[in-house]
């Protein structure tokens, strides 16, 4: 199958890659670019473990084609911290024990960050509905909700 | 002699007895004596047996000492999730 040449920006850096026309963005990130922070939990857009943003919009990268990244700005979990400085969400997830196995954590962090950029002060209910597409099987979500709210409060300067 | 309580479905191997007595000072001797005196227990012993000794469950531990007054209960070999 003839491959497609794609030029894109990932976490602020320019990237080029070749991918098959039917290859997902998730497979490109993981298998061609070595960005394995996004996980495949289902491959059908049901679990959210592969969450990234494309041009600021939260997507399941298993439902986006690699070819669609042409000219886009993509943000993944690998770009969330600023060097050694963890994002407040990342810090509060560690401090608040909001992860157990951690495999859903990259997707949840990316999704939560996308919410807080639109809505810096969500109610618990808004947050729970926003994260309804991100499955966590370990925590029962309790500590995740608390950690996101703690990070949101810090980010608001509260 | 040690009194050993069996679970119900093992009683077919002991002529219906719920409790049997064997000469044993530890878990290994207990299993060996049971196999000799009640050969019908051999298949279950091969599949695995846990031992409750005075309320504490032991899964292997051949040399766990058993006193004459200890409460000894056999249980199927235990695993978990």
């Amino acid at each position, binding site marked *: 199958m003839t491959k497609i040449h794609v030029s894109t920006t990932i976490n602020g850096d320019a990237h080029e890659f070749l991918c098959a026309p039917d290859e997902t963005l998730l497979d490109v990130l993981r298998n061609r670019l070595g960005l394995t922070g996004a996980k*495949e939990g*289902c491959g059908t857009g049901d679990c959210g473990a592969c969450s990234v943003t494309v041009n600021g919009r939260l997507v399941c990268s298993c439902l986006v084609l690699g070819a669609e990244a042409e000219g886009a700005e993509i943000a993944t979990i690998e770009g969330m911290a600023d060097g050694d400085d*963890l994002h407040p969400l*990342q810090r509060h997830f560690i401090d608040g024990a909001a992860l157990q*196995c951690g495999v859903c954590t990259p997707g949840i962090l990316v999704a939560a960050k996308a919410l807080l950029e639109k809505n810096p002060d969500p109610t618990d209910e808004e947050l729970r509905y926003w994260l309804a597409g991100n499955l966590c099987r370990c925590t029962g*979500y309790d*500590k995740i909700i*608390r950690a996101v709210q703690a990070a949101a409060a810090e980010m608001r300067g509260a | 002699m040690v009194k050993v309580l069996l679970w119900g479905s093992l009683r077919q191997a002991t002529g219906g007895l719920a409790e049997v007595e064997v000469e044993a000072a530890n878990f290994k001797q207990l299993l060996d004596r049971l196999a000799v005196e009640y050969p019908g227990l051999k298949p279950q012993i091969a599949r695995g047996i846990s031992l409750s000794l005075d309320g504490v469950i032991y899964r292997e531990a051949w040399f766990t000492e058993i006193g004459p007054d200890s409460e000894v209960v056999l249980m199927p070999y235990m695993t978990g*999730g």
Partner: protein
Amino acid sequence: MSLDEYRKREFKQVGTRVRRPDGVDKVTGRAMYGADATAPGMLWGRILRSPHAHARIRSIDVSAALALKGVKAVVTAEDFGVPEDDFTRDVQDNCMARGRALYDGHAVAAVAAVDQATARAALKLIKVDYEILPHVTDVDAAMQPGAPVVQEGRVQENVPKGFSDNVTAHFEFGHGDLDAGFAKADKIVERSFKTAATHQGYIEPHACLASVTSDGKADLWCCTQGHFYVRTLCAGILGMEASQLRVTASEIGGGFGGKTTVFIEPVALMLSKKAGRPVKLVMSRDEVFRATGPTVSSSSDIKIGMTKDGRITAAEATLRYQGGAFPCGTTEFGTQAAFAAYDLDAVRTYGWSVMTNRPKEAAYRAPGAPVAIYAVESVVDELCQHFGLDPLDVRLKNAARKGTKSSYGPTFPDIGLVATLEAARAHPHYKAPLGPNQGRGLSCGFWFNFGGNTCVSLNVNTDGTVGITEGNPDIGGSRASISLMAAEELGIPYDNIRTIVADTSSLGYNDVTDGSRVTFAVGLATIKAARDAVRKMCARAAKIWGIDEEAVQWKDGAAVPAGPNAGKFPPMTLAEIAAVSAETGGPIAGHYEVNADGAGVSFGVHLCDVEVDRETGATKVLRYTVFQDAGKAVHPDYVEGQMQGGAVQGIGWALNEEYIYGEDGRLQNPTFLDYRVPVASDLPMIETVILEIPNPGHPYGVRGVGETGIVPPLAALSNAVSHAIGLRMSELPMSPPRILKALGGS
């Protein structure tokens, strides 16, 4: 292990909420899970699975697949030998069907190719000639004489005549005179229950990377709850020596019991052996649902008699579990656990293990216990309702306690059930008002907990820090707990310790991370390894001071002379002793190896409020509180996490999760869209109350906490829903269609 391990003490670090050592890796995407590893020259593996519930495999033609450019190896059952022991053979046959496909999703062949697309294309070129056979997926149907037989020759000697050969084992537990007990009852309730099979639902699909070299050595990277056990199984299946197969556990993306065996690892090793290159094999979600770990589905009959003042006079349960296409391994646990919370004069439980054309059951948190206790706790609730008695009072009146002869035989030592029930009664949740269409339910839960084989090394580094090498995959923060216990014992800061999970070549055998054993057993071994290192450090100090070893004590992270007769020397800290270790005899390390017992059983009580929408049949969980005895909570955040996570898995089991089979015996919902696990918007906060009744079998009093939490939600939800709608529910899950049906709707 004796019951005098525990010594009361004031903890300085145990019980604090420190940061986990793998936290930064996990929030930055750096942590390496099963599917995240690569190797030079790596191929991609993929497995072909049976579309039929039961079929004879007449032939498999792989020639076209092998001829496809980029395909490097094809594997079928013919590539494997036939292990002699039943257990290993079952594991292997479940990984790759031999002669017959026993369930929809059963592996029949596998390929390794240069990329995923080629591997997928190759699977389509494999021609399997199936002769479709009759199938059975329902537990009650499978027990009947004349039912399609899943496997011949698997019936144990304890099964009475007259059943299908699918009935492989029968268990009976209990004591006392049932007839006399029931005769004393003022009311007897008899009710039958059904529960659907559920899946552990870990978010990370099974994944591994295998590399077998031509000199017979192999390395395997995989997500598992127990890499030593993976080595045992794979070495057995492939006929390898354990020393030649090194297994490294990746970070694990959830397991809950479902990653305690192998599914793809022997296949990946065989593909790598045949291809002569490393092979990565990753399951899709569809494969995870169809071919791994579900629980049993069950049907049960419960009969309980009670006096009008709430004393249970006799209790009887018959439990029928189907565990898929191989002999079920959890019936005996459910049969023992069913009435564990009660002090009963007359009790009998009967268990039946049944095979069906479904995937082989795997352990799931407190395997076997949730569905048994669900049925029992539902009937206890119904009796309380009948007499208008408070359900907590009734449970307290009948509660098992120290000295109770348990329903499975042993007399209980110190247990925490009464304290847990009293904590629930004292909690504001229990008295909070309820609105229309709302109901409150409660349930007790129980699990045995285990210890097991454990091997720990503790290395004192020359800069005064400590490295701990242990062999149990960290499934929910255990590295933090282990470091905390070592810090406590050594008297040095938590941050000076790093705990790692080592590969199978680095330590003696460690049992699987299961049975809620890690914080208990690895913790115990770590404390003992620390004491071993302390003994050696005291000896070094004694040499330096020129006094007897016995004249040196360890206090607050330093060696000190024991009393005035030992001489006057300033304390020598761990760092000071470590710094001169080369000069005083070489490296300092502590070790401990044990097959730990004395884990101590665990009880919990859950309270839950729900509201049922009578138009849609949907149940909303309004409030949920978990009460559980942790012995000693080493890291309270992660103890709470276990309680919350277990509760929510149980809520999913009660309300929505379900394996749905069609008439054709095929699984109809192998996706997270149709197999609905709880999502964030389904749930309230999960309140937790940790009780700390020390376990006498652990130096710090620790009890396992991982499993009990999944047991009570099933009945707590069922009782709450039954009160909310005024009808007794007796089937799980209580999905909206079932609630509507109960209400007489569409």
